């Protein structure tokens, strides 16, 4: 079975069918992209996978486990991390602290242990700090470690968000438009980074509007339109798919 298996997922908002009967697998070790015009239901799909809200019907299997009914924190504990289309920084916390929150599932100090600073939490705390610093260094924003995250530049916030997700040591990483709002150099950088992440053994499911980036780095592509899956396949095949061309040409 694939790492992530999406089966007939369906989401209705009142009368609006945001996602209709979408099914596809995500194999371990690949970069899979979901593309589609605005309002196609990509973010909605992510929200259902990560448990932000329940699907109207259908199911999601992650590592063979059914995710239906699981809360986001439970899904996170299973090894799934995500970023957001419109960045959700923890404002009022430094970049480093933001990433340290990402280490939450990997650590265990509870209320009492934290309040009384139990000796065993010291080591854990140090480990969290080191790992977070490492990730900031990986994303080349270590000099901003002690800056309030919400006052960072847009691209840097994206990097912090990514570091935060990586801190969870995920098996699967969901990226919602990681290159949105970035210039071409930064976008290319993000592309290299995502490939690097995949090479570290993390499976990536990606939503992105930047076609050249998607065609460059993805192993497989799913195309959504008005909530329905209209195509799935290798980048080369998708590029030639008449229906996909119609949507994208018809739109622009």
């Amino acid at each position, binding site marked *: 079975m694939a790492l992530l298996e999406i089966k007939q997922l369906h989401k209705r908002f009142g009368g609006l069918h945001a996602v209709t009967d979408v099914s596809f697998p995500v194999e371990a070790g690949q970069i899979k992209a979901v593309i589609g015009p605005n309002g196609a239901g990509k973010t909605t799909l992510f929200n259902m996978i990560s448990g932000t809200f329940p699907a109207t019907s259908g199911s999601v299997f992650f590592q063979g486990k059914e995710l239906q009914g699981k809360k986001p924190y439970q899904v996170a504990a299973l090894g799934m991390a995500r970023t957001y289309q419109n960045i959700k920084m923890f404002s*009022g916390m430094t970049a480093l602290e933001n990433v340290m929150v990402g280490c939450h599932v990997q650590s265990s100090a509870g209320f009492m242990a934290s309040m009384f600073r139990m000796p065993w939490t010291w080591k854990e705390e140090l480990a969290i700090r080191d790992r977070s610093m490492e990730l900031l260094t990986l994303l080349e924003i270590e000099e901003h470690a002690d800056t309030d995250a919400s006052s960072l530049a847009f691209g840097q916030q994206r990097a912090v968000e990514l570091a935060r997700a990586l801190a969870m040591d995920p098996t699967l990483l969901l990226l919602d438009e990681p290159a949105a709002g970035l210039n071409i150099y930064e976008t290319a950088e993000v592309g290299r980074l995502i490939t690097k992440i995949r090479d570290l053994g993390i499976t990536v499911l990606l939503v992105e509007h930047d076609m050249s980036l998607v065609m460059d780095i993805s192993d497989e592509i799913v195309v959504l339109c008005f909530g329905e899956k209209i195509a799935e396949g290798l980048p080369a095949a998708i590029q030639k798919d008449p229906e996909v061309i119609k949507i994208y040409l018809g739109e622009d």
Partner: protein
Amino acid sequence: MKKLLLILPLLACVIAIQVVCSSTDTLYYLTQMTMSAYYSLLIIGLCVLMGYAGQISLGHAGFFAIGGYISAGLTTHSLIPFKDNALVQFLDSSGLLLAGQTLYGEELLVVSPGLACAVAIIAAAVIAVFIGIPVLKLKGHYLAMATLGFGIIIYRVVLAVEYFGEADGISEVPAFPLFAGLSVSGSFGDRVSNYYIAWGILLLGLILLLNLIDSRVGRGLRGIHGSEEAADAMGVHTARFKLQTFVLSAVFAAVAGVFLTHYNGGIGPSEAGVMKSVRYVAIVAVGGMANLWGALLMGVVLNFLSLRGVFGSYDDAVFGLILIVIMLFAPNGILSISFRHRLMQLFGKGKQKRDGEA
């Protein structure tokens, strides 16, 4: 750890105040400083709930009253009529009851302050759990109204129940002996020692909360405040964290209630009033919501002034005004950076982007 070192100057201030008061024969100030310390204990607990976990509570005077009233009730109401009850006998034989005499020489048997204190705090914690589970699912206005409703119910209960003395409250609450001859009481001789007891408890509470905030749990909480959705997706069990914080702050309030009641020798229904809850919220807001030091400072200063009667009959009005002015002009507290920016803005130093709060 670095942050904890700030405790030392504070401790120095506390000692300095005592020394000055003792040497200038103004010990009466210590009485109000002691009471302020207990109120501030409640306030720093509420600060963690509001500023860090992002949950408003307009019912914290209720938890204070639960602590104070239960402890007062248990240590003043005689158990003589229930002498034959198995539980009473068991408690008596375990040394958890105190025998004594009333002013009129009647025999008296009451619960010892230690046990009463424990019962009061546990009761507050249990009630906080039961209230918190449903209430903390609510947000915004709903949460505010629900906690306000809880506060009013507690107020009604203490006003209506005979055991709690109805409109008169409970008086003649005995001293609470701690250890090594220290005891929480309002007698003149114990003034200095009680000042240190109160401040010792407050500083201990402060250290615990500072530890909490700068830890895995604290980061999770602040994450909830920053973006609940993202914190949830990072694996933070937001519902449980909120509940635990709620209970923690309720326990702080109850501890404050117990100690202040023994210190004052009584408690009245006004301690459970809505205005008290609002006042605590106001003080946390002035201190800057997510700023324990600010909350502590404002808690001590404003309560001290209020207890000294500086505001006269405008006491409540002052806190109402503070609430509005702070929320209008400095929603992050008067110690915050953005407030300083806005002050600069006033003097025409360019436009600062208003930072949105959650």
